[in-house]
């Protein structure tokens, strides 16, 4: 049960963050250039992403021995999670700017500007590219987290990812503007810690380690990463108080 909640939660949160970013791009294109082309682009991107999930999901679940899978995917999840955590620490400390959906929206509008003659093609391509590239991270999270959490893990991760996408899409349709109020940076911080913790747990299991209390150890690992991230933020702020 604990493993399933962890799998669902990681897939849901990771997918929610990326869906907000993809939604901003689609909204920017749709609200300024009409909905048909960006919606086609979005659908094509989602189909491509679904194919990737099915392809890699099946390949991983059916072909790779469990320990090898945990070692390789665990290592990749560690790298992925640490990368998100790294950015989150720098954002929390004020070293780099917080991700701003309103700014992303304006950037997409600028990209659209001056291409009126090729309106449909440009709108289609920007939506396709935006959704596909943002969705790649979701595909990785879903396949990695779902594939390594034993039998039945993949459908749970897919459900988490899909539910997040639906929630964000419905919210986007209702409010019809970028979801700048979603605490995206905090979510990325949390997902970074969760993924780095799960990845460390699985990578070590793949190396043959046994964890005290099994999956509950993930909480201990998460506490280590969270503590380290706060120390990093504190050190950076102390050295450069202007940034804070």
């Amino acid at each position, binding site marked *: 049960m604990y493993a399933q909640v962890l799998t669902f939660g990681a897939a849901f949160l990771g997918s929610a963050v990326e869906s907000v970013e993809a939604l901003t791009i689609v909204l920017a294109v749709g609200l300024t250039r009409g909905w048909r082309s960006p919606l086609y682009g979005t659908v094509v991107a989602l189909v491509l992403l679904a194919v990737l999930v099915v392809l890699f999901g099946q390949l991983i679940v059916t072909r790779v021995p469990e320990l090898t899978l945990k070692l390789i995917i665990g290592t990749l999840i560690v*790298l992925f999670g640490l990368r998100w955590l790294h950015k989150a620490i720098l954002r929390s400390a004020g070293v780099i700017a917080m991700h701003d959906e309103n700014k992303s929206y304006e950037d997409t509008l600028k990209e659209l500007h001056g291409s009126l003659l090729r309106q449909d093609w440009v709108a289609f391509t920007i939506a396709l590219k935006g959704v596909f590239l943002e969705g*790649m991270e979701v595909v990785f999270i879903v396949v990695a987290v779902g594939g390594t959490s034993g039998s039945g893990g993949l459908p749970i991760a897919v459900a988490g990812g899909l539910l997040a996408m639906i929630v964000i899409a419905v919210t986007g349709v209702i409010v019809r503007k970028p979801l700048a109020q979603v605490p995206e940076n905090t979510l990325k911080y949390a997902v970074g810690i969760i993924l780095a913790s799960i990845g460390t747990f699985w990578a070590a299991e793949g190396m043959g380690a046994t964890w005290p209390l099994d999956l509950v150890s993930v909480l201990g690992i998460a506490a280590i990463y969270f503590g380290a991230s706060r120390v990093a933020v504190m050190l950076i702020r102390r050295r450069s108080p202007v*940034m804070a």
Partner: protein
Amino acid sequence: MRFLRAAVSEVVGLFVGDWAQTAVSVGILGIGWFVLSHVHVAGIAFLIAIALAAQIVYATTLEARQRARHS
């Protein structure tokens, strides 16, 4: 072609921000694997998490210092 290049760099970018930092992380995992195969003590794997956590503290503070110096 540009789309493909963007997709490839996106995939690599999922795992690698800074190559040196990635190499250090992989190195820590490699050393952890070596230690785990020789020392069979429950909970010793927590050392891997501690080493990775220390690595991220070092990498982020270093990057912050470098950015402060260049700005």
